């Protein structure tokens, strides 16, 4: 059981997401662009992320958005949808896409905050459409499972006790 359904990404959706994130990185002239689930799971990363601890970045970004969202609610706001952190060398632009995912852009002096904001706005709209489709697909899959007519066998339906034991060997 859960308050929200699992996030399930299939090949085609994932490719669309990666393509959009890569396009944003190129057009905004950013160093790195990440897409992170609100719960801190890294969905996609593009750019010069070698040597970057992307898992930690994802988790801290989600923590940051969660804490800011908590502050917003205390002030009677729904949320603060954009965060900007300015560093000596690199800057961080964090924004919400829909109510589910977080778009993180890391950029330096080779571009500007204005350009990043402009490009983020357009990419957010495109990404939002992809995630709406992801949710519709998931809804249909759940309905099919509920009705006992799921046409594709889930790999997890076959998990055995032995599989689980093997994880801890």
């Amino acid at each position, binding site marked *: 059981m859960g308050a929200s359904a699992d*996030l399930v*990404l299939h*090949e085609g959706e994932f490719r669309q997401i990666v393509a959009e994130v890569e396009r944003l990185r190129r057009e905004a002239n950013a160093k790195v662009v990440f897409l992170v689930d609100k719960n801190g*799971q890294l969905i996609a990363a593009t750019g010069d992320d070698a040597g970057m601890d992307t898992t930690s970045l994802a*988790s801290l970004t989600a923590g940051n958005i969660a804490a800011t969202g908590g502050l917003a609610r205390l002030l009677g706001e729904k949320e603060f949808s954009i965060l900007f952190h300015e560093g000596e060398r690199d800057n961080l632009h964090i924004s919400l896409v829909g109510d589910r995912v977080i778009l993180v852009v890391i950029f330096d002096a080779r571009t500007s905050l204005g350009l990043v904001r402009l490009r983020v706005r357009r990419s957010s709209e495109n990404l939002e459409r992809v995630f709406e489709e992801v949710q519709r697909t998931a809804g249909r899959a759940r309905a099919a499972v509920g009705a006992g007519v799921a046409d594709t066998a889930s790999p997890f339906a076959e998990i055995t006790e032995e599989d689980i034991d093997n*994880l801890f060997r």
Partner: protein
Amino acid sequence: MSFINYASREINCKIVYYGPGLCGKTTNLQYIYQRTNPEIRGKMISLATETERTLFFDFLPLALGSIRGFKVRFHLYTVPGQVFYDASRKLILKGVDGVIFCADSQLARLEADCESLENLRFNLQEQGYDLDRLPHVVQYNKRDLPSIAPLHEMRALLNPRGAPDFEAVASAGRGVFDTLKAAARLVLIELKKGQGG
């Protein structure tokens, strides 16, 4: 709420350690971090005060291996146990797949254990979860200390529904991996159910 990526063939699940202040949540994570092969664990992040009390959360990612060709990753979080950090605890519970309730076995902390469990139940409910239906495991920590409550009493108070439970001395590693394994197992079984298995 797990994240399943069919393209990169990954499953990510979130397990949260919950419990009263100083019960040993961070110690559990530190032990796991120390005793896990560096290849399968990421960096451990602790957002703590100068006196090493958890301020927001600790985070430890583990990539345990593969099941049916899918890489299985667990993200372990702790909450800040001190009563006044309740707003932070609520945030960390978002999207949780499994909970490990870490209790302090000392008699003097029994009341704090009960309050924390009640707080967990309430905070989960606020987000639409029901503790009795969520994969969860109970750990009775600090069994090596004097003046601890008998196991049957702790069970009656903190685990009336008989979830998997373990005695532990997290500082020495006793019971730490048994607790984690049990929680991971329940999360994966739930995932299997959720996927129509």
